[in-house]
C-alpha cells in the first residue's frame, strides 16, 4: 500500500494546524502553568440550565430531534433574536440549530462557496474561517484590520479587497482575539459598500451578549443587509455552555434550507440533551448573562489597566473576553514573547499572529479568569518584560 499520507486530501494536508494548538501542546507538558490562554468561560453552566439537561435524560429524551432542531427551541431562538437584537426570523424556515457556532460556520461556507470563490476574512480573527474556506475549495482573502481603528473593519479596507470573485464577507465582531466591536455607524459604512453588490455576509455574533459599552448591533439590522446576512451564534460563550456543543444560524430561507440539507447528511441533529437545556437558557437565562457580563467587565478593567501600567499598550476591548496588548516595545515577536514567557514565568498567553499576520506584535490574553489569577499573571508578565527590556 502507498504511504497513507499520499492518500489524504491535499488541501487538508497543506492546511497548517491552528497556531493556538502549538502553544497548547507546549503548555500541556508543563506543571503549574498560570494561564490567560483559554477562550472559554471560567463559569460553570448555571445550575437551572444543567438541571433541565439532567431532567431531560431522566425523562428519556435520548433520541434524534428534527434536523433543524427542536421546534420549541427554534421558537425561543426567534423570540430571543427579536428581544435582544431587533431582527426577526421565522422559527420554521429561517433558523437551524447546530453543533456549536462552529458547525454553523462550516455549514454556511460549504453551502454557499463554489471552488474559486473568494471569502473576505478580516484579521486578526478566530482561527476557523480560513481552513474551512480552503476545505470548501474557496479562497480566503485576509483583510488586515488595524489597532489605530481598534481593529474595526473600515469601508476603505473592504472596498480594496472586493473583486468580481468575492462571494462572502465574514464579519467576526465582537472579535476574538482583539475585543474590537463594530458600532452602528461602522456597520452603516460597511453596508454602504455592500449594497450595490451580491456579496453575502456571515456575521459571527457569538460574543454579542458580551458587549460592554452600549448594545450589540447586528449588521442584519442595517438597511438592505438583512436578506444577505446569515447570523451565526451559540450558547458557548454567553451561557458558559462550551461543552454542550450547541449553536445556531439565522438567515435567508433558501440558505438555511440548503444548510439544513448539508447538516442532515453530515450531522443529523444537534445533541438532544443540549437542545433541551438551551430552551431553559433562553427562557430563564437573561439574568445569568447579566451577572457574568458584569463580572467580565470588572476583570476587563483590571487587565487593561494592568497592561497599560506596565507599559504594554492595550486598547480598550469593548466586547468578548480578551485583551490584546501590543508587545512590540519588547523587541520580541509574538511567538518569541509567548514562548519565553511560558518558559521563564510559566504564564500561558496566545501569540497574536495565531489569528492572522496582522496580529503580529500582539498577544491574546483571556480574562475569563478570576481577578486573583489575572493579577498573578500580570505580576509575572511585568517581571518578564523587565527582564527582556
Amino acid at each position, binding site marked *: 500500500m502507498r504511504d497513507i499520507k499520499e492518500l489524504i486530501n491535499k488541501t487538508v494536508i497543506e492546511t497548517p494546524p491552528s497556531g493556538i494548538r502549538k502553544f497548547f501542546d507546549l503548555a500541556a507538558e508543563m506543571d503549574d502553568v498560570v494561564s490567560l*490562554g483559554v477562550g472559554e468561560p471560567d463559569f460553570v453552566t448555571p445550575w437551572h440550565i444543567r438541571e433541565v439537561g439532567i431532567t431531560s435524560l431522566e425523562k428519556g429524551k435520548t433520541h434524534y430531534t428534527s434536523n433543524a432542531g427542536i421546534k420549541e427551541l427554534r421558537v425561543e431562538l426567534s423570540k430571543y433574536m427579536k428581544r435582544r437584537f431587533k431582527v426577526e426570523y421565522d422559527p420554521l424556515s429561517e433558523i437551524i440549530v447546530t453543533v456549536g457556532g462552529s458547525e454553523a460556520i462550516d455549514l454556511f461556507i460549504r453551502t454557499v462557496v463554489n471552488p474559486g470563490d473568494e471569502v473576505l476574512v478580516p484579521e486578526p480573527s478566530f482561527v476557523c474561517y480560513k481552513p474551512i474556506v480552503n476545505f470548501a475549495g474557496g479562497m480566503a482573502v485576509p483583510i488586515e484590520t488595524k489597532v489605530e481603528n481598534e481593529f474595526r473593519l473600515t469601508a476603505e479596507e473592504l472596498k480594496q479587497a472586493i473583486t468580481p470573485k468575492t462571494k462572502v464577507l465574514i464579519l467576526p465582531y465582537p472579535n476574538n482575539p482583539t475585543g474590537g466591536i463594530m458600532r452602528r455607524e461602522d456597520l452603516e459604512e460597511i453596508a454602504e459598500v455592500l449594497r450595490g453588490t451580491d456579496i453575502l455576509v456571515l456575521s459571527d455574533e457569538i460574543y454579542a451578549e458580551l458587549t460592554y459599552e452600549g448594545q450589540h448591533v447586528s449588521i442584519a439590522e442595517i438597511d438592505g443587509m438583512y436578506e444577505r446576512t446569515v447570523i451565526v451564534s451559540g450558547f458557548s460563550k454567553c451561557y458558559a455552555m462550551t461543552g454542550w456543543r450547541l449553536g445556531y444560524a439565522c438567515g435567508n430561507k433558501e440558505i438555511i434550507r440548503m444548510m439544513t440539507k448539508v447538516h442532515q447528511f453530515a450531522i443529523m441533529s444537534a445533541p438532544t440533551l443540549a437542545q433541551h437545556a438551551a430552551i431553559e437558557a433562553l427562557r430563564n437565562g437573561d439574568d445569568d448573562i447579566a451577572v457574568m457580563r458584569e463580572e467580565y467587565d*470588572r476583570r476587563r478593567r483590571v487587565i487593561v489597566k494592568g497592561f497599560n501600567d506596565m507599559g504594554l499598550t492595550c486598547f480598550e476591548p469593548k466586547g468578548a473576553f480578551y485583551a490584546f496588548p501590543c508587545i512590540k516595545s519588547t523587541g520580541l515577536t509574538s511567538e518569541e514573547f509567548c514562548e519565553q514567557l511560558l518558559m521563564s514565568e510559566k504564564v500561558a498567553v496566545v501569540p497574536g499572529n495565531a489569528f492572522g499576520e496582522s496580529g503580529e506584535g500582539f498577544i491574546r490574553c483571556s480574562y475569563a479568569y478570576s481577578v486573583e489569577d489575572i493579577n498573578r499573571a500580570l505580576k509575572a508578565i511585568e517581571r518578564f518584560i523587565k527582564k527582556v527590556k
Partner: protein
Amino acid sequence: MEKEILIQELVKIIHKNCKLSVEEIATMLNTTTVAVAELIDELEKDGTIKGYGAKINWDNVKGSNTVTAYIELKVTPQMTNGFDRIAERIYQFPQVTSLNLMSGSYDFGVTIEGDNLKEISLFVSQHLAPMESVISTATHFVLKRYKNDGVIYAGLPEDDREAIS
C-alpha cells in the same frame, strides 16, 4: 455611577473578597481610589461593613474540632419590646454565633459553637432552656458543611479547562 448602585456593587465585591486593594476595586468599578476609600470609610462608620474576615473551612484546620449546633427556640414574647429583649439576653453569650427571629413554627434560630456535644448540650440546658420566656428548644447538630455564606465547601469543581484553547 449613582452612589446607591456604587455601594451595592462595592459591598458585593468585598463580601466576596475583602483582600482586594482599594486600587483594584476602583478599577473594577471604574471610579477613583479616593472615591472607593471614602465610601468604605463611610460604610465602616455607619455600621454597614461589620468587619473583614476570611471564609474558613474549619474541617480542614488541624486541631480545631469545633462543634456547631442549630437550635430552634420557642418563646412567649414579653409585653414591652416583644422579642427584642429576649434576643438581647441570648446574643450576649459568646457561644452564640448567630441569632435570627424566624417566621413559622418556632421563634428564634440560634447558632451555637462549642468544643464538643456535651458543652453545647449543657449550654442549652443551663442557659437557654431555663430562661423565663422560653417554652421549648430543639437542638440540631451540624454533621457536615456543604455550603456556607455562598461558598461551597465540598466537591468544588476544579478549573479543568486546558491551559490554552
